[in-house]
C-alpha cells in the first residue's frame, strides 16, 4: 500500500477530505465493509409478492438465487407500503425458509403415542377415504321434515391466511360434498 492510499484509508483523513466531518457517511466504511455486497446483489431474479401476515397488504420483493429465496424486502413501488415492512413482514424470510418449517407428512394413528412417517400420496388417499366415509355417516336428506341435502359428518376451519383461489376451492368442493360447517378466522 502506497503512502497515498494508506492516508486515504485513514477515516479521520477521509472525514475531512470527503466532506463527511461527522464520520457518519462514506468515511465510516472500512476496507471490508467497502467490499460487502447486499444479499440481493447477485440474485437471479426478483418476484413480486405481498406480505402474508396482516391485511395491510404491504408489497414484497422476493429475491431468488439458484431456485432458493435468499431475501425478502419491502417493495418501494407499492402505494400502500412504499417499501416498508414491519417486524412481522420483515421476518418473512425466516417464516418461509427457516428451519421451523416441516417438510414431511406426519401421521398419528388412533391411540398412538408418537408421530409416524407417511407418504404424501398415501395420506391423500386415506384422507379422501375418511371424507367419503364421514360424509356418508353424517348425511341428512331431511331435517325436521325439510329437505336439507347435506352432511354434518365433517367440518373445515381456516382460510384467512390462504389465497382467494384456495378459499374458492374449499367452498366449492366442500359445498358440493354437502358440508356446511365451513368456517375461518373471520370471527376471531
Amino acid at each position, binding site marked *: 500500500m502506497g503512502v497515498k492510499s494508506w492516508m486515504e484509508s485513514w477515516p479521520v483523513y477521509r472525514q475531512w477530505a470527503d466532506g463527511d466531518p461527522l464520520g457518519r457517511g462514506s468515511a465510516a466504511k472500512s476496507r471490508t465493509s467497502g467490499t460487502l455486497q447486499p444479499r440481493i446483489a447477485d440474485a437471479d431474479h426478483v*418476484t*413480486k*409478492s*405481498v406480505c*402474508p401476515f*396482516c*391485511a*395491510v*397488504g404491504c408489497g414484497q420483493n422476493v429475491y431468488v438465487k439458484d431456485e432458493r429465496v435468499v431475501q425478502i424486502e419491502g417493495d418501494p413501488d*407499492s*402505494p*400502500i*407500503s412504499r417499501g*416498508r415492512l414491519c417486524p*412481522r413482514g*420483515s*421476518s418473512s424470510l425466516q*417464516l*418461509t425458509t*427457516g428451519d*421451523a*418449517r*416441516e*417438510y*414431511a*407428512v406426519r*401421521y398419528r394413528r388412533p391411540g398412538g*403415542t*408418537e408421530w409416524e412417517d407417511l407418504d*404424501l400420496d398415501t395420506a391423500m388417499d*386415506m384422507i379422501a*377415504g375418511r*371424507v367419503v366415509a*364421514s360424509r356418508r355417516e353424517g348425511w341428512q336428506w331431511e331435517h*325436521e321434515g325439510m329437505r336439507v341435502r*347435506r*352432511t*354434518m359428518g365433517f367440518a373445515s*376451519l*381456516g382460510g*384467512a*391466511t*390462504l*389465497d*382467494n*383461489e*384456495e*378459499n*374458492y*376451492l*374449499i*367452498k366449492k*368442493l366442500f359445498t358440493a*360434498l354437502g358440508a*356446511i*360447517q365451513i*368456517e*375461518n378466522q373471520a*370471527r*376471531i
Partner: protein
Amino acid sequence: MAECHPVGFQWVMEAKARGATVIHVDPRFTRTSALADLHVPLRAGTDIAFLGGIINHVLENERYFHDYVVAYTNASTLVGEDFVDTEDLDGVFSGLDPEERHYDFSTWQYEGGEVQAASGARYQVAGERVEGKDGSDGPRSGVREAARGEAHGSGGAGITGDFETDETLQHPRTVFQILKRHFSRYTPEMVAETCGVPMETFLRVCELLEENSTPERTSAFVYSVGWTHHTVGVQYVRTASILQALLGNIGRPGGGILALRGHASIQGSTDIPTLFNILPGYIPMLHAESSTDLQTYVAAEKAEKGYWAELGSYLVSLLKAWWGPAATAENEYCFDYLPRLTGSHSSFETVMAQLEGECKGYFLLGENPAVGSANAKMQRLGMANLDWLVVRDFSLIESATWWKDGPEIETGEMRTEDIGTEVFFLPAAAHTEKDGSFTNTQRLLQWHHQAVEPAGDARSDLWFLFHLGRKIRERLAGSTDERDRPILDLTWDYPTKPMPSHPGDDEPEAEAVLAEINGWDGHGTPLSSYQQLRADGSTACGCWIYCGTYADGVNQAARRKPGTEQDWVAKEWGWAWPANRRILYNRASAAPDGTPWSERKAYLWWDADEKKWVGHDVPDFSPTKAPDHVPPEDATGVAALSGTDAFIMQADGKAWLYVPAGLTDGPLPAHYESQESPVDNPLYRQQRNPVRQIEPVVHPADRFQPSGDEPGAQVFPYALTTYRIAEHHTAGGMSRWSPYLSELAPTMFCEVAPELARERGLEHGGWAHVVTARNVIEARVMVTDRMPSLRVAGRVLHQVGLPYHWGPNGLVTGDAANELTSLVMDPNVHIMETKALACDIRPGRRPRGPDRLALVADYHRRAGITERTGLDPAVGGAAGKDGKDGT
C-alpha cells in the same frame, strides 16, 4: 394500529405531519398512543357508552352536518307507532321474547313501508315473504340463528310501500327525534361513570371531532377486533356509523370507518367465504325453510331496489360456474345441489357437534384453534372426540400436537392412549411458493407470484383441494346415488402446471381459478362487470363482486404500476372490488346538486356539460345518473335509485341512523355490560345484551361468572382484556417459531397498573396467575402505567391486559390467553367476547397437574357458579334486574 398494522399506520403519521389530530381510544397505552395527540384510556367494553356520549353531544349542540344528514341519511324518515325504545323499557326494545332470547322485529319498521335489510338478518323480511304473512309470525328460530350477518355486499336492498318523511326533522317519530331521545342519557357524566373517562377529556374529544367534520374537513375512524369481540360487537360498529353519518364523514376522502383486519386475506375469505352462512359474494346460504326451489329462494332474498335486485343473476351464474353444462334451466341450474342450513353452524357450534359425536372429521387449513379460538380447552375437547383431523400448516402447531402434549394431558383429564383421533399433519406451502391473490383490508386484490417451488411434501392448499377433490371423485365415479351427483357433476378440470421437483404432482393454475371467479360469457370470454351477469344460464361467475378482476383476460390483481407514477388514489395498483372502486358511497363526496362539498375535499362531481360523474375514483353510482334524477314510480332495481340516493346498498338509498331491519339485537345501539363484568350497568337495568347467543354453548368446560352486583362477582374483581403486539401475529402460528420475533417478544406476560400490583403483591418481572371460570393461566408480570386503573362507578377499577399470541409450542412459549375466554357470542355474527371479561389475578405460577383443575373448582365454589350462572333471562321491561336473581 401502530402495533397491529404498523405499516398502515405510516399514513396516520403522514396525516399528523400535515396537521391532523390523532386520538387513540383504548384501555391500554400502546405505540399508537405514544404517537397520538391524545390517548383516552377507557374501561374495556364501554365503547358504545363513549361513542353514544359523542352522538348526544353532537345532537345537543347541533354540531351535525345538516345538509348531509337531510339528503343522505334516514334522519327524516318516520318510524311506526309500535316502536318502543330502551328509554321506556328499561334498556330493551319492543318485541323482546326474554325466554327465547329473541326480538320480533316487526315493530321496528318505518311508518307505511316494509324495508329489506341490505345486510344482516335479511330473512326478517324474507321469512314473511315466503309465508305470505304480515310479519306477525316471524321465521322459526333456526332461520334466525343462521347468521345472515355477513350477507352484505354491493347492492341495494328491498323496499316496499311509501315511507313518510319530515324534512324539518321535527316530527317526534322521525329517526332524528328518536335518536335524540335515545342518546339523551349518554351525558358526559354518564360517560365518566361508565367508561372511566374524565369529563374534560371526553369533551375535548367531542370538540376535536366536531371541529374537524365539516365541508372542508373529514374525520376517519379506525377499529379492529377491539370493537367486534363483544356480545354486542356489531352495535359498537353501528354506533360509529351513526356518528360518522351525522358528521357527514362517509363516502368522502379522509372519512369513513375502516376495519383493520388481521390476516393477509381475511377480507378475501369473507368475500369468497369459507364461512357457513354465505356463498361467494355475500349471497345467503340456502335455508331449509325458505329455499325449497330457485324461484322461492330468489323471491325471498332479493331486493326490489338497488343491486341486490339482480340476486337471481348472481346465483345462477355461480351455479353455472360450479356445475357447468350440468346446470340447466330444466333442473334450475342445479339449485337443489346446494346444502341447506337449519340454524347456526359457526365454528363454536361445530365444537359442540364434535363433542356430541355428530361431526367426526375436521380440516384445519392454516388455523390454530387449540390456542387461537375462544375457550381453547373446548376446542381441544372437541378435537379429541373426532375420528380424524387434518392439519395443514408450516410447523407443528398446538392444534396438531394437543393429543401428545396438550394441557389436558398434563392435568390428567386426557390420556394420549385413550384419544381415538387419527391425525394427519400435511406441511403447507408458503406465499412465496405459489401464485394467488390476497384481498387486503381495503377490498384490494393483490396477486403474489410464485418465486420457488415448495420443498419436500409441502404443497399449496390449491394443490391439496384440487387433488383431494380429484381423488374423491375417482372413488365415487360411476355412483348412481343421487347424493353423489353434485360432486360428480362439479366442474373440476382446472389446467395444471408440472412441478419439476415433484414429477407427476401437478399444481393447478391459480390464474385459471381466478378466471372462473371473475366469470365468462357463453363463448368463454371473460366478463368485465357484474352488470353483465344474467339469470338465464348464459353467464358463469364464481363471485359476482369480483367480476372484473380478470377483465379482458388480464389479471387485474397483478397490476403493479408504481405508486410514484400514479395519482394518490393509485387505481392501477391491484384491483378493488367492486369495479375497482376505492371509496364506497363516493356519491356522498358531492353535495346533493352534484358539486363538491368543498374544493379541499372534492372527490367526485357531476360534470353538467359532459352529463356524467367525474373525479378521482370510479363512481359508486350509475355514471350518467344526474343529481336531480327522479326515478319513475314503477322503477325497480338500480333504476329505482334517485340522483341523491348515495347509499346504494340500502333499501331507501340512505345511510341508516336507525336500522329498521337487519340487526337481531336492536334498531339502535345500547350500552350493555359484557357477559362478565365487574360493574353493574350504569345506563339501564338490563345488564347484558338480552339476545346474546349463549344457550347453545353451555358446557361444563364453558361456565360463566356472576357479574356486577351479583353475589360471587367480587371473586373476579378485575376487568380483563386481550390484545396483540407488533412483534407477534395472531395466535402465534406464524411468529412464535421465528427467532427474530421470538427474541423481540420472548414470553407471555400480563400488564397491570402499579396500584393493582400493590393490591395483589405482584412483582415486576415475576410470575402471576390469572383466573376465570374457565381456567387459570400464568404469565410474567409487567407492572406499568400502560394499563391504567380507572375511576368507574364511584370506585377505582383495575384492569388486566393479556396478549393472546402465546401457546405451549414454538421457540417462545406461554399459556394461551384463550384458556380464559368463553364461547358466549354476539347474536348477529357469532363473534365471541374476548375483549371484555372479569378475572382474578394472584402472584406466583399456576398449579401444575390436577391442582390446576382444583384451583378453578375452588373459584367456582367461592363464586357460587352453577350451570345456570350468567344465563339469566332479560328483564323484558318488567321483572327484576337481569342477573339480580344471580347464580
